[in-house]
């Protein structure tokens, strides 16, 4: 298991950089992970991240696109604008969650 120093903390990560221990996550780490992806987190980003985290706590899996649309109320187009190329993969990484089973 690899470790990584980020925003003054040491965290455990998998081969693709996803945190493996969610309890090590904090907002400063999220900001730094976002920066590595060339993203500056705004309120709109945080809404998505917080939804992913609360849904993950409730159901034990990272939600897919349909759930983000229907339950979270986020439009796919907006998610791609916020997190270009792979919105769920990127948002999950920043949120300190495992790599999603779904594809984007």
């Amino acid at each position, binding site marked *: 298991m690899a470790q990584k120093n980020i925003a003054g903390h040491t965290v455990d990560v998998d081969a693709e950089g996803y945190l493996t221990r969610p309890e090590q996550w904090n907002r400063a780490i999220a900001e730094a992970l976002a920066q590595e992806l060339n993203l500056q987190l705004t309120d709109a980003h945080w809404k998505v991240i917080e939804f992913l985290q609360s849904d993950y706590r409730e159901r034990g899996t990272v939600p*897919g*696109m*349909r*759930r983000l*649309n*229907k*339950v979270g109320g986020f439009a*796919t*187009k907006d998610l*791609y604008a916020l997190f*270009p*190329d*792979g919105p769920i993969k990127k948002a999950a990484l920043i949120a300190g969650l495992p790599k999603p089973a*779904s*594809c*984007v």
Partner: protein
Amino acid sequence: MKELLILGAGTAGTIMANKLRGCLPAAEWRIRVVDEAADHFYQPGFLFLPFGLYTDRDVVRPRSRFLPRGVEFVQAAVDRIEPDRRRVRLADGLELPYDVLLIATGTRPVPGQVEGMTNGDWRRRVHEFYTFEGARALQASLRDWRGGRLVVHVSEMPIKCPVAPLEFAFLADWWLTTQGLRDKTELVYVTPLSGAFTKPIASQVLSGLLDRKRIRVVTDFAVARVDNERHALVSWDERDVPYDLLVTVPPNLGADMIERSGLGDEMNYVPTERHTLRARGHENIFVIGDAADVPTSKAGSVAHFEAEVLTENVLAHICGEPLSERFDGHANCFIESGFGKGFLLDFNYQLEPVPGRFPFPRLGPLALLGESRLNHWGKLAFKWIYWHVLLRGWPIPFVDHRMSLAGKQIPAGALKAEMAG
């Protein structure tokens, strides 16, 4: 008189009607099955229809022929389930009460979910083979095919029989070769996944096969729309895949009726206890087949294995006993790979498909996750077994509802811990 009500007379509903009629005394229990369509389809046959390998007669039969005496068939669309009143309302307003309800309404392709999919090119250049009409329309288009770009596409996961689009690509490669059209056709496989298949070990094997058959693969493709002017698939990250003929698997969703009843998740699948098959939070409702949200493949073989578990659990429930029979997620799928060969996958909640022999260790005779002629014959034999053994609710010799580890070559770390719930 007590009421056992089954919604859906497809694979799962038909098997359950047959099994339960044999167990429940007719003087105490009425069994009714509701389905909107009079015909039963052998859906795995939809794969062979476009290539002219099967005819209509192989895949369609009247539903009533497969329901036993003593089971009432109600041909009607279900409008909604009202769990609080223990009633099911039909579209014509009629109400059916129940003591025990089995939901077996499956899943279906919904092309309207992708922008532009059902516009001008629909059923001309844009086809699907997940319905009877779709497979037949595709057969007509293939007959006129003279070459160009043929794109096989999966819109999103999960879909029922997740190997079917790969099989279509393999069969297309074979069929084009026999027609002398393979060199005039560019075959492309477009998937939202990062590899050929959902499960890593099988994905590697199948990727190699796509490669050998010169089928180009486009991965991580999240479709945003079908552009009917330029004849192209367009992804959310603005990639284009042009087509002359597109064979897509549209998004698969559970019945609208589930949504109207307030019983579904975001894909209209019913949250279901994965080992007992009881609907979460509903004492008297059970779910079987593609309608359930359990984390295994949506396949006829799964419905068959689930039926063995569910029969025991429904009987236990009726007697007020704990639901002790457990479903392990067992799925068993043949993959047609073209040129008279096939693969076989056998897996469950805990173990992804791995190489080995089936059903007997060493002896086989079927090969797991390896290509063989016998697997192809197995796939063809499945049609006869489906109509004559499976739908009747009879067991398949030597194949238990619990997946066997014997005969499997299990790489380190592949066997996962038992999951909760």
